[in-house]
């Protein structure tokens, strides 16, 4: 069925619109690439300088990696004295792993308790946790530090780990996730099957929450790994210090007189583990930033 006036069809406006959209799109891509460069440039400089020796770094600017990466790595690994970075890595890892597991498990448990059971004050409990979420952690840090000093709890890891059991933000994420994914009928069905309440939580609810647990495990690990404020105050013994604390110490030393390649390597190794995890799990992590939050 050919239109009788098909020859008279006007394509000019259509072509112009196409060109306009292409130009707009190109400009947007240029903007995105520009931001990408901003995001990656400093980390690239970090990498380049972590591969260079002190002498090379002082000789001038370059974007080409050198070949002293392993040399710098060895120096970093064997660093002792004020900042034994190898021990810092280990200490940070221990604290972050245990505290992230505790935070995640107990947040899920608390959220499940509030979500699945009807008890007096249930509504109040949720509102209360929401309210305290807003209070900066630094407010309690004054009393907490005094308490630790008085009780001689300083230089003990558990004071950095145990308070993570009460994590309002993680609780909030978990309860949102439960609302979206766990029908209460399932809990009742499990009860009918003769499962105890704890067993139901551990065997039925936790597996269902796996995606949320994984995401919060990562977030709380990263938060603990990166934490500078409290560990600086509570850990004073050099061999017990965490990585960020050691960075702060290195920073207070005279930079110009230190092996710069080594310093870049220390910074690199502080960032690297998280980057490695992110490389593989970026999709899940980004989804976790919002999922179950904005859209209930």
């Amino acid at each position: 069925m050919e239109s009788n006036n098909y020859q008279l069809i006007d394509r000019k406006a259509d072509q112009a619109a196409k060109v306009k959209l292409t130009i707009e799109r190109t400009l947007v891509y240029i903007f995105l690439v520009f931001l990408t460069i901003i995001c990656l440039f400093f980390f690239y400089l970090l990498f380049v300088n972590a591969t260079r020796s002190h002498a090379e770094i002082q000789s001038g600017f370059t974007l080409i990696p050198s070949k002293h990466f392993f040399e710098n790595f060895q120096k970093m690994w064997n660093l002792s004295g004020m900042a034994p970075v190898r021990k810092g890595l280990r200490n940070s890892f221990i604290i972050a792993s245990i505290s992230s597991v505790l935070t995640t498990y107990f947040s899920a448990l608390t959220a499940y308790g509030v979500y699945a059971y009807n008890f007096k004050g249930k509504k109040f409990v949720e509102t209360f946790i929401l309210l305290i979420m807003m209070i900066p952690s630094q407010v309690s840090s004054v009393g907490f530090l005094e308490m630790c000093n008085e009780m001689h709890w300083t230089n003990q890891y558990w004071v950095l780990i145990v308070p993570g059991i009460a994590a309002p933000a993680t609780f909030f994420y978990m309860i949102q996730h439960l609302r979206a994914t766990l029908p209460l009928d399932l809990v009742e069905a499990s009860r009918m099957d003769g499962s105890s309440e704890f067993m139901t939580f551990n065997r039925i609810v936790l597996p269902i929450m796996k995606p949320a647990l994984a995401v919060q495990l990562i977030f709380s690990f990263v938060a603990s790994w990166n934490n500078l404020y409290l560990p600086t105050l509570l850990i004073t013994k050099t061999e017990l210090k965490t990585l960020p604390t050691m960075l702060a110490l290195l920073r207070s030393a005279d930079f110009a007189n230190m092996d710069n390649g080594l310093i870049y390597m220390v910074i690199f190794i502080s960032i690297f583990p998280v980057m490695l995890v992110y490389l593989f799990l970026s999709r899940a992590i980004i989804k976790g930033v919002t999922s179950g939050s904005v859209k209930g």
Partner: protein
Amino acid sequence: MAEVILKDIKKIYPYVEKKTKNNKKGEPEKKHNLQITDKGVVAVQNFNLEIKDGEFIVLVGPSGCGKSTTLRMVAGLEDITEGELIIDGKVVNSIEPKDRDIAMVFQSYALYPHMTVYQNMAYSLKIKHTPKDVIDQKVREAARILNIEEYLDRKPRSLSGGQRQRVAIGRAIVRNPKVLLMDEPLSNLDAKLRNQMRAEIIKLRKKINTTFIYVTHDQIEAMTLGDRIVIMRDGFIQQIGTPQDVFDYPRNKFVSGFIGSPQMNYFDGKLLIEDGKYVVDVDGYKVTLSEAKQERLTANKIEPQDVCVGIRPDHMVIGKEGLEGMVDVSELMGTNAHLHMTVQNKDTIVIVPIINGYNDYVGKTVKLEFTGNLVHLFSLENDKNLEFINENVYSEVEE
């Protein structure tokens, strides 16, 4: 008013999800039979249609058939992968929706929640810098037509479903668009309101002079509203025609089953030639076809063959001879009864009038008669109607 031409339109949705992702949970593999190519899923293809000025076109088909996609391509909300869309003699493939002068009524109504009904309806005019008094006059005029004058100061949230629907239509008509698109506008209403609004749309259509493209999955809406109906399945047009044409002369088995309720019955039968005439034989019950059908079959040089015989439920009567079947269930509908029976081991529905009291057929074996002008013969090979086997989907029957 505008003429709309869709020429060889094709739409491919590129793959987004990887196949392996969700399959382990035993979900259904796929819901549709859309063609899949290297580039992605083909949602619409070979779509050709010329819509005349002021015509009311209905796109109808089961979910996933590509009707909404087609409508959204006309709206400019979806890219057109191939082909040309021409409105008023201008190709508009890349023209933005805002410059197409097309209005659309959405299935979800899409009323702006932060604006009052008045502001919702005035929005498109305000954008075009229409003088305030003109806006006011037009909005009130549309509100009067649709009976929503008293709600003008309310927010959409405080309106009922039917009222929102009217506002959505009002918003579309205030600006006298060249083309008015409707995407399943009645599907969120309950049955009673739906019937009422359907009648309103017919009335509205007489009042405003514009080209309509209406999408629905409901064949009754299609039959009652459309000047022409476009029946689609799996991205392909199955038939284009007037409601009567589509009902009387379905081009294939799918169309015959989709249009008409209850659905057409199908039997295994044979097409024979006896004494130079085409005769259809179902289980030994022979019926000579009508003259018109004889002519068309002859013109197509159809050979005797096994066929699928389609007969609508209201085109069969219980008589002395004919197809034998057992009545399983009888549904009383008031003036008639729907008999569910087993014929050739298949479920069959027959509508019988209730004239002199109701005759209880349940459990009885009855004989079904039919006449030669109301049978449809479909090829077992390709499901096409043998009378029209050489025609494409666009041709109409001349009577």
